[in-house]
């Protein structure tokens, strides 16, 4: 069962999705539902013997294109509504054991083209206000299927964290007359010490206010709002920075580095262009080679993050980790 319940205290919607308890959890390797279907084998989510990149609607969605009626009635204080939206799964490669940092640049270019297509397609639906593209990578962040994949949630409204970002960005624009993200990037570039890699179109850095030890943000250098504005040059440049960063992550401690990757861009709502700035945020759970960052008392109960390291020192660590140049292939 799936529905949205209003939290009047935080002024945000909660999605209930009890059917997700039944989703596939760490299946044996020969039963991966994201691999192609082998002739004579069990049918996976992809009923073909091979594929390049595939997107499909999630079998266990938190938001549904044709949602069922809520099972409980709301009140004036705590309204309930159906959870209308779309949840998709993006398969990055048919190679189950594939390590993305070892894939050629062309794989990243293809993936960005697919993300762009999904963003444009889903944004055009009248019942969608926000298209959120993300990747959960590694058991440490709760991944239940190890096959390289990401997800897309197309929400009926703007989710709380994104809304907070946008409101702050709008306020900054009204007060200063400039984009908040453009100004943050300008300051980071002037100070230099947080920059990890940079090319014509994108800059990867650990922001001054990073919450996680190795929290990298990738900012568009110009005021680009979303994938809808991406041309071939931007696609190739983002692919280069993305691959370089993921390679650095994997080389940092000598294992495939887990993270949550969140792509933030313009909502599917008119009038948000001036204060939406395309950027990607990475939240890796490791704070050292063998210690994880937990969202404990202060973070979970008070919303106040404590970072046990200095972002500029962690940026230096990543800068000094191979590869030192932007990946071109």
């Amino acid at each position, binding site marked *: 069962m799936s529905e949205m319940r209003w939290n009047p205290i935080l002024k945000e919607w909660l999605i209930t999705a009890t059917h997700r308890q039944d989703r596939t959890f760490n299946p044996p390797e020969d039963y991966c539902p994201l691999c192609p279907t082998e002739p004579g084998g069990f049918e996976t989510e992809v009923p073909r013997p091979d594929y*390049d990149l595939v997107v499909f609607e999630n079998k266990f969605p938190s938001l549904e294109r044709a949602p069922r009626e809520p099972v409980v009635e709301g009140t004036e204080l705590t309204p309930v509504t159906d959870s209308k939206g779309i949840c998709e799964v993006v398969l990055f490669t048919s190679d189950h054991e594939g390590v993305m940092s070892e894939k050629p640049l062309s794989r990243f270019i293809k993936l960005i083209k697919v993300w762009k*297509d999904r963003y444009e397609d889903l944004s055009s639906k009248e019942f969608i206000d926000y298209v959120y593209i993300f990747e959960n990578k590694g058991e440490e962040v709760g991944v239940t299927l190890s096959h390289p994949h990401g997800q897309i949630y197309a929400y009926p409204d703007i989710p709380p964290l994104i809304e907070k970002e946008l409101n702050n960005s709008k306020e900054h624009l009204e007060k200063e007359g400039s984009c908040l993200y453009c100004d943050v990037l300008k300051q980071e570039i002037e100070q230099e010490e947080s920059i990890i890699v940079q090319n014509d179109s994108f800059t990867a850095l650990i922001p001054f206010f990073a919450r996680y030890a190795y929290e990298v943000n990738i900012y568009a250098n110009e005021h680009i709002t979303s994938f809808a504005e991406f041309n071939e040059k931007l696609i190739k440049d983002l692919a280069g920075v993305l691959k370089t960063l993921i390679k650095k992550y994997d080389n940092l401690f000598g294992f495939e580095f887990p993270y949550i990757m969140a792509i933030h861009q313009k909502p599917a709502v008119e009038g948000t262009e001036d204060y939406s700035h395309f950027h990607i945020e990475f939240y890796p759970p490791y704070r050292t080679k063998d210690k994880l960052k937990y969202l404990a008392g202060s973070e979970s109960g008070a919303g106040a993050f404590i970072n046990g390291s200095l972002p500029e020192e962690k940026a230096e660590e990543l800068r000094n980790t191979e590869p030192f140049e932007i990946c071109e292939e």
Partner: protein
Amino acid sequence: MKMKKEEVKKDDGRLMYYYTFEEDEEDKSKKKEENK
């Protein structure tokens, strides 16, 4: 690279998209250049 998309409806009604890519003339000439 030119992208092609094929939309398919799964047996249970869910939508699915197969993406394939073709090298365009620019990609081919780049490869030729690299192989010289």
